[in-house]
């Protein structure tokens, strides 16, 4: 144990560089370290509420750390070292549940921490079921879905609109991009192999079910480029390397709208997921006070609606939805036209089966 402490202390030293918050003598700290994903999403956060907040509080400075992908690992290490340098961390729901379970994230009372809606609806009702854990402050609903090159659709054939078109090489020949992990892919494969939506996880629990999913994926294996970074599929689509590929809907939005590429969206069986804030457990009082003040502002109805101006992710508050600009609504995963057939993946299932299925998936890939 001694060794691990020494080592953790050194790690913490490196991590802490530059983010040492000088605790104000009393009251609130005047600096915040926010952790997010970088790219277009972080920009939307910066513009929608970090900048306005900093304008209101000129004494405060904020720093971004783009480590959300490794947030759980890093928070664990910081916790072991006894020196948490982050103030607010943006994570997906599955990670938030894990952080909460392990006591790495602070539990909070939504109605105390978050502003009520303008019409007086309490925050807990306004966010509703999206508060998936006692520690989680959801910000947006995003989805993993498919984009395809409109100019590569074979002549005389309709553009792909069903999830099973991904598995149909005869009708839609060409390369596909899928994420290099079993989550989502296994579910889509089973859906297209005749398993009913409600039974997907029951089937996937069994060895036969896992083999069935891999067998279905095997039918397109030769045509798949496996991605591991969110930027891969948009890039591959823009290069014309692939015909269709899965990625986050906001990334596709920027390929289609900002970069004007000949790319279309296929919303069928899009997988909903949440992204939002957790507060690391055990923050000193002054930093916690600052974070609470910021959160109250950043998660109010108007601010969440503002964020939707910059990126096509649906705001997590019901009261924000009507305030979303009209021209953005059609790009939201939550828009009724897009959300006709959605799939909410099972966090609990993947918490249990991740290691097992991942080992199988990886060796299947390598064979």
């Amino acid at each position, binding site marked *: 144990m001694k*060794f*691990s402490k*020494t*080592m953790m202390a*050194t790690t913490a030293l490196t991590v802490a560089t530059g983010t040492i918050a000088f605790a104000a003598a009393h009251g609130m700290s005047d600096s915040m370290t926010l952790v997010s994903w970088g790219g277009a999403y972080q920009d939307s956060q910066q513009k929608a509420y970090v900048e306005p907040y900093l304008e209101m509080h000129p004494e405060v400075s904020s720093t971004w750390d783009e480590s959300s*992908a*490794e947030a*759980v*690992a890093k928070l*664990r290490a910081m916790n072991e070292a006894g020196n948490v340098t982050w103030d607010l961390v943006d994570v997906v729901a599955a990670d938030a549940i*894990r952080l909460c*379970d*392990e*006591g790495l994230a602070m539990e909070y009372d939504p109605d105390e921490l978050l502003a009520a809606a303008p019409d007086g609806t309490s925050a807990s009702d306004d966010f509703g079921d999206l508060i998936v854990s006692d520690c989680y402050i959801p910000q947006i609903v995003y989805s993993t879905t498919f984009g395809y090159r409109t100019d590569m659709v074979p002549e005389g054939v309709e553009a792909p609109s069903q999830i099973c078109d991904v598995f149909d090489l005869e009708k839609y020949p060409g*390369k596909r991009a899928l994420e*290099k992990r079993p989550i989502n892919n296994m579910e889509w494969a089973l859906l297209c192999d005749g398993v009913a939506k409600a039974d997907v996880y029951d089937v996937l629990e069994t060895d036969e079910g896992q083999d069935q999913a891999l067998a279905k994926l095997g039918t397109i294996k030769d045509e798949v*480029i*496996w991605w*591991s970074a969110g930027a891969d599929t948009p890039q591959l689509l823009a*290069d*014309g*390397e692939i015909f269709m590929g899965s990625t986050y809907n906001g990334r596709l939005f920027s390929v289609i709208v900002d970069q004007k590429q000949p790319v279309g969206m296929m919303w069928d069986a899009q997988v909903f997921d949440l992204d939002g804030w957790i507060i690391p457990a055990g923050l000193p009082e002054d930093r916690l006070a600052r974070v609470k003040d910021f959160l109250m502002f950043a998660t109010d109805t108007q601010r969440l609606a503002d964020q939707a101006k910059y990126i096509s992710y649906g705001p997590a508050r019901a009261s924000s939805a009507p305030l979303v600009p009209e021209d953005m609504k059609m790009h939201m995963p939550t828009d009724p036209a897009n959300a006709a057939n959605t799939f909410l993946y099972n966090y*609990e299932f993947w*918490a*249990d*089966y*991740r*290691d*097992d299925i*991942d*080992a*199988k998936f*990886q*060796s*299947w*890939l*390598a064979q």
Partner: protein
Amino acid sequence: MSETTQDGPVPNSASSANKSADARPELMLAADGTPLKKSLSRALRRQKLRALGLVAPLLLFVVITFVAPIADMLFRSVENQIVSDTLPRTTEALADWDATTGNLPPEAVYEALFYDMSLAAEAKLHTRLGSRLNYEQTGLSSLFRQSGRGLDDISDVYLDQFEDLNKDWDKAQPWAELMGDPEWLTEQAAWTKADGKLPRFVLSDGMDDLLPRTSVAYQNFARFTQVEDEKSPIKTKPWGTVQTALYQDLMAQDVSGYSGPHADMLKTADAAVADFDSVTFQEGFSEIDEDWADHEVWQTIKTYSPNYTNGYFLNAVDMQKTPEGPAMRDDNERIYGLLFKRTLFMSMVITLSCIALGYPVAWILANLPSRTANLLMILVLLPFWTSLLVRTSAWKVMLQQQGVINDTLVWLGLVSDGDRLVMINNQFGTIVAMTHILLPFMILPLYSVMQTIPPTYLRAAKSMGATNWTAFWRVYFPQSVPGIGAGSILVFILSIGYYITPEIVGGTTGTFISNRIAYHISSSLNWGLAAALGTILLAAVLLLYWAYDKIVGIDNVKLG
């Protein structure tokens, strides 16, 4: 390295024999009267200490930043204290249970589990243990998570009945008065926030004899509440474990002699408990989740009870622990052996292609007039200084199916538009990109060695009638071997540990073992397995280094 200290003439055996013969009995003394030998060694020691003092900061730096993390990693690969730390009583009780009989563990184990788990759930440690054990058996993660929440079902049985007897059994104050030392109670009552730390809970005298289980349960509650939640036990309702322990104690103990605070309440309860509804812990746990009645779950817990385990290492070589000893995993779950082999094989190929490409370049550099050579050297160094990510991404642009090379081939008519070559996201892509990235590490040592080989040797060989090839192969090449050795070791060891490039261009067939290590460190959070894989990799590198030293000799390596 150590040779330098032995420079100078070495006395031959004859002179040393002389010396011992001439040794005089009386000691030689220094000016201050101390023996010369002593005075000399003192002076030397002072010198050594000063030298050590000078290198101390560096030494400390190396130890802290290099040795300590490696030691920590080695330690993590076998460390397994989480099970016995989180469930101390359960693992102890399980020690006597024979897993091979097929029977479930006795009630005492379930009882220990109840108390251990309650404390762990308050500290939120049970989910960590759950994820640890889930590496070994799927489903344990959610079993532990749900059981943490379900524990109240067991304790509520007793809590409700005690509460029916007297409301005070579910209140903070009476419990504190019953269990706490009077002195502590006064201190605690007088405490204000300004005083800082809460006074540490002290059990009242004789309580641990009277109510042993309750004392332990209450102490756990009181200390945890004070330290972790920073709340006063006087104002906090005790956990359900306390009432459960009280029920067990009252069933087993005689409290008639007790006369302290709340004696009436306790005695009434004592008289009533015999008629209480009760539930065995085993039933209670099976109610929470039927998996607790599963023999295999207990077997896993028992298998991973010891503080140290070889489980991670077995996993790292595609094996697993079974009751019958280590066994291979299913065919469709074996990946690490394959990845280790692939990593070594591909690193070898990359090293060889670096030699093939780097040797002629270094030769040209070494044999051109220095002005031209310097210019060419810049061409070697420029990519060397360019970011790894930039170069890797550039290869992606070059090699992809709609990329520069395929476009050129199609334009030249060598390849039809329909069958563009697949050159990226596979092994080929990784080899090309990594060869390019590591090439300077081959060229630079080769160049520095080749520069020291006088060109006159080649001319001399030729003047004696050797052909170009013989002159090169018999005269030049042997002298350049140290350069090849140094370059190969550098390139090989660097490529074994690469993970960014294979991640970007490797696809599925071109990724290395380091990609899995990175995955386990940052995504699956199975740090133990990552450490075991890393340890094996480290051992492999050291072994290769040793083998290299035996075959080629490490003294032959010249880095400049």
